[in-house]
């Protein structure tokens, strides 16, 4: 075996799945399907448990920083599995030389975001490594939440059937382009701000007010395209998306046109899709639109029967194509 790890294996697409399957799942023996949080049933009830590492470059970007991202990301992984997020751990790997004021600014915003999301940071760890052994700051957060047993189906999507609607809570692509812009990699400045936000307020509301929530997943690395493909594979159905109804902010569209990115593949940090029964879709959409993080929510497509489990796109000009799983490096170190 002379294979080496390349950046592709961290991009959240096909190769990431292969790495998880061929290494982690092989040796750790994780059960199918892989969801954002593990669901653990114990004598005291049902809890969800999740963990994530953050290596975003740069550590400060328009709309957030690595710490806020870490809290939002972990809260969202718990929230989309149907749970109420409760407790979070935070571990810091710090490169020597990091200005203390940067660390304080990051930790302060983590505390602020945790308070907003109603979670408590209860344990943590700190390591400092020599210059060059990590890049400024890496953070790992883990979190637990409490899951109402009647919502266990949500992370697995096992109740989804033909005709169910897919709703998104707002425009896609902002986080990826905000980070890219902050890297000074673009020869122009962009007005794009990361969508980094905790979504447990929104998920809590829709689950309380509708019994028709069949699936939720946040749209991080690999973007909308990756999540839709994972979902189609998991439920062994097809998905049809109407391109024109997927919200994309104008500056994001413009930058994507210029650089050849497809916003449907770009990372987000405050976006999710919700699958609902068709009869509940309008009601859920209205609730989402009444919440700050869902103001621009839209119904973007539906679940269809398809033997190949393809995600197809009705293009905005009336054509048709598939929306495939992303492959290869999109933009490394976006979260």
């Amino acid at each position, binding site marked *: 075996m002379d294979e*080496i790890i390349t950046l592709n294996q961290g991009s959240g697409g096909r190769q990431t799945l292969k790495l998880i399957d061929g290494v982690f799942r092989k040796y750790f023996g994780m059960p199918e399907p892989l969801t954002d949080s593990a669901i653990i049933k114990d004598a005291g009830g049902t809890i969800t448990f999740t963990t994530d590492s953050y290596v975003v470059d740069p550590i400060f970007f328009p709309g957030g920083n690595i710490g806020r991202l870490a809290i939002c990301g972990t809260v969202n992984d718990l929230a989309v599995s149907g749970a109420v997020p409760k407790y979070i751990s935070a571990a810091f790997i710090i490169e020597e030389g990091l200005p203390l004021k940067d660390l304080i600014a990051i930790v302060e915003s983590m505390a602020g975001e945790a308070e907003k999301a109603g979670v408590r940071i209860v344990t943590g760890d700190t390591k400092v490594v020599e210059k060059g052994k990590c890049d400024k700051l890496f953070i790992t957060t883990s979190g637990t939440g409490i899951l109402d047993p009647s919502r266990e189906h949500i992370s697995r999507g096992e109740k989804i059937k033909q005709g169910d609607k897919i709703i998104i809570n707002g425009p896609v692509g902002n986080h990826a382009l905000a980070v890219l812009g902050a890297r000074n990699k673009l020869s122009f400045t962009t007005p794009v701000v990361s969508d980094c936000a905790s979504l447990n307020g929104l998920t809590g509301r829709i689950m309380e007010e509708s019994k028709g929530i069949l699936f939720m997943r946040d749209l991080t690395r690999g973007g909308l395209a990756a999540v839709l493909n994972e979902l189609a594979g998991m439920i062994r159905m097809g998905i049809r998306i109407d391109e024109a109804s997927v919200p994309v902010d104008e500056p994001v569209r413009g930058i994507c046109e210029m650089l050849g990115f497809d916003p449907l593949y770009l990372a987000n940090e405050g976006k999710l899709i919700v699958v609902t029964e068709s009869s509940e879709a309008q009601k859920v959409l209205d609730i989402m639109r009444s919440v700050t993080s869902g103001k621009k929510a839209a119904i973007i497509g539906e679940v269809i029967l398809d033997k190949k489990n393809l995600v197809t796109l009705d293009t905005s*000009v009336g054509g048709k194509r598939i929306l495939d799983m992303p492959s290869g490096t999109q933009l490394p170190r976006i979260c």
Partner: protein
Amino acid sequence: MMKYIDEYRDKKLISGLADLIARSVRQKYIFMEVCGGHTNAIHRFGISALIPDCIRLISGPGCPVCVTGKSFIDKAVAILKLENIIIATFGDLIRVPGSASSLEKERSSGSDIRIVLSALEALEIAKLNPEKKIVFPGIGFETTAPGTAVVIKLAEKDHIGNFFLLNAHKVMPPAMEAIIRDGTNIDGFICPGHVAAITGSSIFNFIPEKYNLGCCVTGFEPADLMQSILMLVRQKNNNSPKVEIQYNRAVTETGNLLAQKNLSEVFEPCDDCWRGFGVIPDSGMKLQKKYEKFDADKVFSPVISYTEDDGSCICGEILRGIKSPADCPLFATVCVPENPTGACMVSNEGTCNTWFRYKING
């Protein structure tokens, strides 16, 4: 509303064009696009669902990454083994397989490879790292070559001694002629709009004059492509092949004279090797003698053991429009974007890559 974009993606306009095309067709038509940007746009917008089955769109050698031979990557890899080298490259190139390695694999093993969006950015890296030697792999047609030419002139003017061009710039018309002579069955060319914006549409005049085939210089939005298909259908129906400019918001008959001047001051024509075609006379551009000191090939003399492409991949025939990805036993099985066998699977503009990502039932 995005100007110059949304008006060319208007659903009503496009379905109107689709109706006109459907009412105009009288026979089978095969049109070839020779620009990777067109290949990508056709599949991205799902154009084939908008035109009648009797029109077949096939892809030619329009993706600069795809027509670049393995030996070019091998040279870049060989140069990386020397001391103090930084390769500053367009991102598309890093996954292209050479005979034993790729720039991506070399980067994972610690080589200094940086992604740039322009040759100018590579020159900036050279200025910031005077102790290093910066090699820019120059690929692309008449569209990207003027940018490289300007940067070479800037490097000369500013006495930048650590910037080098590994050159594989090519020109399009000789490859189109090679396809026609090869006997590929086509009824007209969807000509590359951005090439023509630089060169002028007149570079395609030989195609109707010598070979009696229609040409339409085309833009990159769905309405452009639909209108161009309609124009080519009408040319064929009327048996009046000519060079028409559909993309008249960017293209004239004479083109961008300043860009042409830069090209002719820095480069001169040479024979060049195209993947799938072999050597095509006068299809390349080489640096003129006075700029030889920037020529990475001459300065570093990379030693490569030349290997012919293995016979299993049919990239060559796909690039010549003879076969489609579906004809290749490796397509979507062994050859996938994350592990491409041939270059056509690498770039967003490559035919196999585009098919893989966009094509229904592909």
